[in-house]
């Protein structure tokens, strides 16, 4: 097992690293790798919700509050899924609101854990993360839901890597995510099952 940003893992696979399974926090990276012939057909194994997270005692309770000067916001780097979903949401906002929010961004982090870490340590006022990260923060963070029409489609894809040393085990692992213990563990962590 190797845990890192989906894009870093994809970059490693492109550089010739060969794990058995590639599981990503989006579907576009597995799709791209599939097109490049590096992984098999991807399967969507879970979905998630992008939310605004703030420390438990924060006064912030809407996207609008993020426009106030002096608010410090952290988000994912544009190259990682959480960062690109966040920009997808912000790009739908009116131009002046969008600009005010971008002006308050103080850090573009390479993964979600460094976003929630900054929030729990009080180093930033608000950040965009997945709802599962708030669940994982054991009560230190509070969720502010995004307007439903802005919610991006956050789906997770996994695929068997071409040339895997154990392709059968890899397929079994992915099936295990869709049912039984794997699916139960995902649900407990706050993930939703794949649509359909």
């Amino acid at each position: 097992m190797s845990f890192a940003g989906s894009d870093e893992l994809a970059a490693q696979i492109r550089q010739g690293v060969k794990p058995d399974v590639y599981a990503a926090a989006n579907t576009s990276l597995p799709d791209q790798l599939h097109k490049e012939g590096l992984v098999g057909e991807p399967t969507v194994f879970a979905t998630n919700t992008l939310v605004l997270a703030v420390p438990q005692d924060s006064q912030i309770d809407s996207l609008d509050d993020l426009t106030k000067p002096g608010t410090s916001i952290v988000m994912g780097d544009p190259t990682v899924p959480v960062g690109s979903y966040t920009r997808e949401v912000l790009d739908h906002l009116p131009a002046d609101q969008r600009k005010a929010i971008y002006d308050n961004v103080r850090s573009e982090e390479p993964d979600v854990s460094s976003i929630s870490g900054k929030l729990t340590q009080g180093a930033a006022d608000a950040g965009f993360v997945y709802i599962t990260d708030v669940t994982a923060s054991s009560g230190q963070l509070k969720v502010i839901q995004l307007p439903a029409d802005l919610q991006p489609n956050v789906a997770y894809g996994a695929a068997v890597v071409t040339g895997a040393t154990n392709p059968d085990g890899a397929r079994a692992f992915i099936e295990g995510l869709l049912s039984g213990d794997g699916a139960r563990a995902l649900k407990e962590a706050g993930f939703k099952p794949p649509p359909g």
Partner: protein
Amino acid sequence: MRRAAFAVGLFLALFLVLAFLTLPIVAIFVHTSPGDLISSLGEQDARDALWLSLKTSLAALAIIVIVGTPAAYLLATREFRGRSVVVTLIELPLVLPPAVAGIALLASFGPEGLFGSALDDAGIQLVLQTAGVIVALTFVAAPFYLRQAQEAFAAVDRNLLDAARTLGASEARAFIRIAVPSAGQGIASGIALAWGRALGEFGATLMFAGSFPGITQTVPLAIFARFSDDFTAALALSGVLVIVSAALLLSVKVLGRSPILGGRAP
């Protein structure tokens, strides 16, 4: 015969060391054309990162040298109770993983940390600020300098210092005119090591200061941001950092040998 075999063994070991340590660096330049290097510098974010790295590492280095030199001199020239404990504590950050350094800095100087409210009262903001980068660099790089400077001062001939004092030089004058120049070469290599470590700092900076172009995104963080979507750009920026670091290392070594710092010609 046996002696020849031993010599061959030594050369083989050196060859392996050299090959293993230089091949990955050679690979960066094999994959990067001079054109890529130059065009990576055409990118505003890359130039910002390079400039920020130079600025913050120089600021950290200035703090380290100004405070560290007298501290290292004291440790090298005085015996006192608990000295070895002090030396060990100072060297501890050398063996700390960057993630531990980042957590430790947050726990001490972060808004929720030990000194968080004191810093806040004083109007000092470190996290997500350029000042936070300097704090992180100073923390991880200082032990490299302290260690080298301390060894260099310890190697200075005590008779020289005693003679200077016998001739009427004050303690401070002996330090500035005799000890520092005599230890020049060791001090210079301490500067080179600390500077190199500061330029390469990644984990503690990310955790404590964050990553934002022009404010906190130093070259290693900019390389990491490019790693995922633009491997060529990441390679090119790595190449630039290798060249800058090599130039710094070389110039400090040359300076250390120059008579200005009292070093001897090789």
